C-alpha cells in the first residue's frame, strides 16, 4: 500500500512541478507580451512569485521522496546523480549561450520573449540542480543521525521555507534585510556542513570518485551562479525570479558543503587505509570469536588467527609452532618463508636477546611476547607470541618483517587481542568436547547400572523350611559378583553364588554370561558336579583368556533335609552347626571355572552332602568380604567372619545380614573406599 502511495507521491509531485513551471512560464510570457504590446494584463508579480514558491515546494517534495527510497549506503551513486543534474543544467545553459552565439546579433537574438523563455529554462534547471543537491546533502548529513543534527536540519528547512516567502516582503531586491537573511542562511548552512561522517566509510577508490563528482558539482554551482548574476544585471525581464533568498541561500549551502566534502575527502586520502585496516581488524576479531562449529577443528581458528595477525601488522613472513606432549614440535601455517630460512631464523632466535630469554624454561610465563631485532639477511624484526590454552603453553606464533622496528605498539596490542580471542575460542571448543564426553560417560554408566541391577535377582526362592536373604555392593558402578536361586518344586531348590575375576564392566559382562549359563543348565536338574562340569564347558567357549569364575552350587532338598554342593574354586561356605555350637568352613576339593578348559576339569571337583538341622545357618560370601582392608592394611579375614556368625546365628536372616554388614563397615572404616565387590547370602533353616 505504502509503496504505491510513495510512487504516486513521486510521480504526482514531478508532474505537478512541471505543471507549475509551465504555468509560471505562461504567466510571465503573457505578462511580458502584454507589456511589450501595451496590453494591460492584470497579472501581478505576486502571481509569479506564488507559482515560483509552489514550484520550489513541489520539487522539494519530489526529491525528498526520491532520495528516501534509494539505498542508504550508496553515497557515490547519490552524489553522481546530483553531479549529473548539475552537468545537465550547466550543459543546457551552455547550449543556450552557444545558440545565442550562433544567432550573433540577429533580431531573434534580441527577442525578449525568447530570452524570457530561455531564462525560465535556466531558472528551472538551476532550481532542479540546487534542490536535488540539497536533498543529497541532507541524506549525507543525516547519515549518522543524532537528535541535535536532526533538529538543526529541521530548523534549517523551516528557515528555507521562510526564505521562500521572503520575496513577498522585499521583492527580491538586495537591501540590508536581504543581506542579513542571506548571511544568516549561509552561517546556518555552514554549521550543517560540518557533518561529513560519511566520508571515512568510502573505500579508497570511491573517495577518488567522490572527489570527481564533487568537483563537478562545485563547477556547476559556480557556473550557474555566475549565469544568475549575469541575468540579474540585464534587464529584459520584468519579474526577477532568481534574485531570491531561497535560491541564493541554496547556492551557498550546496557550494559550501561541496567544498568541505572535497577538502575533507582529499585530506582523508592518505589515512583512508587506516580506517579500512581497523574495519578489517574488527571483522577478523568477529571471525575469531565465532564459536568453533562441530565438525571443524582447532586448526581452523589458528588459521584465522594467522591471517588476522599477518594483516594487522603487514608482516612479510610468519609461521606457527605447536607443541604436542611427547611428539616433536609441529610447524603449522607457514606463510611466505622457506623451510631453510625459517630454521635459520629459529636458530638465530635461540642466540639473540630477547628471544633467548623468552624461550628459556620458565620465562614464558613472565613474558607476554618477545619483540626484537634479528641479524638475518632478509628479516630484521620479529615478534613472537605464545599461544596458551587453559594455562598450558600450546605453541608460538612467529611474525617477521623485513624492515627494522617494524612492529609498533598498536600492532602488538591488536595481535595480543587476536591471540587472546583465539585462545578463548579454542578453550571453549575443548570444554564443549569434554562436556560432551562426560555426558556420554554418564550415559554409559547409567546403562551399566541398569544392567547391574537387572543381573542381581529380584527375589530369592525359598519355602517355609528355610529363609534366605542376600546383599551385594559393587566397587564400581557394575560388579562381578552374583548370586541366584531356582525352585525346582515345592521342596527342591538350587542356590548359587559366584565371583567373576576382575571388576567393572568387563566383570559384569562375564557375570551376565554366567547368569545365562546358570539359567540354562539349572533347568536340567543336574547334580552339582554335572552342573559345574557343563558350566565349565560352556564358559570355555566364551570366557576371555586370563579370566575365570569361582562359584559354589547348592541343591537344597527340604523334604530330606539335605544339602548337596560342589565348589568351583569359590570361598569355602561358612556353616553354623547348632549341635556343635560354632561355625566352620566347609572344605571340599574344587577348581575355578575357566581354568581348565577341557574335559579334565571334572576330575578336580567333587560333591559333598550334609544334613541340616533346624537352627543351622549357612553363609555364602565372596572374597571381597574376607579380603576387605582397613586403613592399617589389615584384612577382615576368615576369623572375624566366623565370629560374627557365631554371635548372631540366633537371629533371623535379615538381622544376621545386618550384623555382618555392620561388622564389615565398622572394620573397614568410613573413609576407606571399597576396592572389590562385596556379596553375601544368609540361609537359615527353620523347619
Amino acid at each position: 500500500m505504502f509503496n504505491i502511495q510513495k510512487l504516486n507521491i513521486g510521480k504526482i509531485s514531478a508532474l505537478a512541478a512541471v505543471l507549475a513551471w509551465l504555468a509560471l512560464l505562461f504567466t510571465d510570457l503573457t505578462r511580458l507580451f502584454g507589456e511589450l504590446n501595451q496590453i494591460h494584463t492584470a497579472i501581478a508579480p505576486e502571481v509569479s512569485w506564488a507559482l515560483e514558491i509552489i514550484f520550489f515546494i513541489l520539487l522539494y517534495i519530489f526529491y525528498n521522496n526520491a532520495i528516501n527510497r534509494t539505498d542508504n549506503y550508496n553515497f557515490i551513486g547519490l552524489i553522481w546523480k546530483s553531479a549529473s543534474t548539475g552537468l545537465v543544467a550547466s550543459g543546457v545553459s551552455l547550449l543556450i549561450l552557444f545558440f545565442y552565439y550562433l544567432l550573433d546579433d540577429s533580431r531573434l537574438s534580441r527577442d525578449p520573449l525568447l530570452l524570457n523563455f530561455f531564462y525560465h529554462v535556466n531558472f528551472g534547471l538551476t532550481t532542479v540542480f540546487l534542490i536535488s543537491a540539497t536533498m543529497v546533502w541532507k541524506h549525507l548529513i543525516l547519515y549518522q543521525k543524532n537528535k541535535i543534527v536532526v533538529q538543526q536540519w529541521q530548523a534549517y528547512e523551516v528557515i528555507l521555507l521562510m526564505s521562500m516567502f521572503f520575496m513577498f516582503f522585499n521583492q527580491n531586491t538586495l537591501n540590508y534585510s536581504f543581506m542579513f537573511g542571506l548571511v544568516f542562511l549561509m552561517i546556518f548552512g555552514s554549521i550543517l556542513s560540518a557533518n561529513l561522517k560519511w566520508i571515512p566509510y568510502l573505500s579508497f577508490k570511491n573517495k577518488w570518485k567522490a572527489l570527481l563528482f564533487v568537483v563537478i558539482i562545485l563547477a556547476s554551482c559556480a557556473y550557474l551562479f555566475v549565469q544568475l548574476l549575469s541575468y540579474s544585471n540585464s534587464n529584459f525581464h520584468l519579474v526577477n525570479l532568481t534574485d531570491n533568498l531561497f535560491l541564493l541561500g541554496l547556492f551557498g549551502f550546496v557550494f559550501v558543503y561541496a567544498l568541505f566534502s572535497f577538502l575533507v575527502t582529499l585530506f582523508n586520502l592518505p589515512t583512508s587505509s587506516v580506517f579500512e585496516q581497523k574495519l578489517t581488524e574488527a571483522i577478523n576479531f568477529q571471525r575469531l570469536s565465532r564459536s568453533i562449529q562441530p565438525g571443524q577443528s582447532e586448526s581452523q581458528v589458528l588459521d584465522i588467527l594467522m591471517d588476522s595477525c599477518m594483516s594487522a601488522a603487514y608482516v612479510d613472513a610468519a609461521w606457527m609452532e605447536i607443541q604436542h606432549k611427547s611428539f616433536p614440535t609441529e610447524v603449522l601455517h607457514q606463510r611466505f618463508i622457506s623451510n631453510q630460512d625459517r630454521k635459520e631464523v629459529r636458530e638465530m632466535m635461540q642466540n639473540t636477546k630477547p628471544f633467548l630469554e623468552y624461550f628459556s624454561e620458565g620465562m614464558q610465563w613472565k613474558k607476554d611476547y618477545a619483540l626484537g631485532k634479528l641479524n638475518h639477511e632478509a628479516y630484521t624484526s620479529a615478534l613472537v607470541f605464545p599461544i596458551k590454552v587453559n594455562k598450558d603453553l600450546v605453541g608460538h606464533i612467529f611474525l617477521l618483517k623485513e624492515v627494522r622496528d617494524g612492529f609498533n605498539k598498536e600492532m602488538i596490542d591488536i595481535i595480543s587481542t587476536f591471540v587472546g580471542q583465539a585462545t578463548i575460542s579454542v578453550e571453549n571448543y575443548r570444554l564443549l568436547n569434554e562436556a560432551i564426553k562426560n555426558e556420554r560417560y554418564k550415559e554409559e554408566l547409567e546403562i551399566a547400572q541398569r544392567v547391574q541391577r537387572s543381573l542381581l535377582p529380584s527375589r530369592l526362592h525359598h519355602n517355609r523350611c528355610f529363609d534366605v536373604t542376600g546383599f551385594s555392593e559393587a566397587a564400581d558402578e557394575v560388579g562381578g559378583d552374583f548370586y541366584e536361586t531356582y525352585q525346582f518344586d515345592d521342596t527342591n531348590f538350587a542356590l548359587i553364588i559366584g565371583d567373576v575375576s576382575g571388576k567393572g564392566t568387563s566383570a559384569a559382562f562375564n557375570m551376565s554370561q554366567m547368569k545365562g549359563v546358570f539359567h540354562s543348565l539349572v533347568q536340567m536338574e543336574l547334580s552339582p558336579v554335572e552342573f559345574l562340569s557343563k558350566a565349565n564347558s560352556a564358559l570355555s567357549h566364551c570366557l576371555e583368556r586370563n579370566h575365570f569364575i569361582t562359584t559354589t552350587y547348592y541343591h537344597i532338598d527340604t523334604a530330606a533335609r539335605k544339602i548337596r554342593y560342589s565348589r568351583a574354586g569359590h570361598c569355602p561356605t561358612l556353616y553354623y552347626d547348632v549341635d556343635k555350637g560354632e561355625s566352620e568352613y566347609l572344605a571340599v576339593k574344587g577348581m575355578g571355572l575357566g581354568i581348565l578348559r577341557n574335559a579334565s576339569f571334572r576330575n578336580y571337583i567333587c560333591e559333598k552332602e550334609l544334613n541340616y538341622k533346624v537352627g543351622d545357618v549357612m553363609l555364602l560370601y565372596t572374597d571381597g568380604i574376607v579380603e576387605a582392608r582397613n586403613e592399617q592394611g589389615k584384612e577382615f579375614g576368615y576369623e572375624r567372619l566366623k565370629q560374627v556368625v557365631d554371635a548372631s546365628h540366633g537371629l533371623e536372616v535379615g538381622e544376621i545380614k545386618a550384623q555382618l554388614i555392620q561388622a564389615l563397615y565398622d572394620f573397614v572404616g568410613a573413609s576407606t573406599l571399597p576396592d572389590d565387590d562385596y556379596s553375601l547370602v544368609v540361609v537359615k533353616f527353620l523347619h
Partner: protein
Amino acid sequence: MLKIEKTETGDHCVLRLVGEVDASNSVELDLAIQQLMAENVKKILVDGSALEYISSAGLGVFMSYLEDFQDNGVRFAIFGLSNKVKNVFHILGLDQLLTIEDEEQGALEWLYEG
C-alpha cells in the same frame, strides 16, 4: 606396587616377586613370563617369599600360561608363599595344576626331576 627380580642361574631362571600383584601391574608379570618363554627357558622358578598379596588378575596370569607350559615342556614351580597367599591358590584349585613348594630346595629338585 610390584617389583620383579630376574636371576638366571645355570639352566633355570628365578623370578622373585616383591610386593603385591593386582590388576594394575599384573601385565608386568605377564610380560616377564612371556619374555622367558620367548628366550626358550625350560625351567622357571617363582620366588613368592616376598609376595604379600595376589589378586584374581595375578592368578589369571599364571592360569593363562598353564597350557603354554605344557605345550612347550616348561617346568614351572612356585615356592616360599605365605600361608595367606598359599591359601588363595588352594581355594581356587590352582595348587592342583601348579607345583607349589614351601622351600626353594624342594622346588629346585622338582624342576630338575623331569
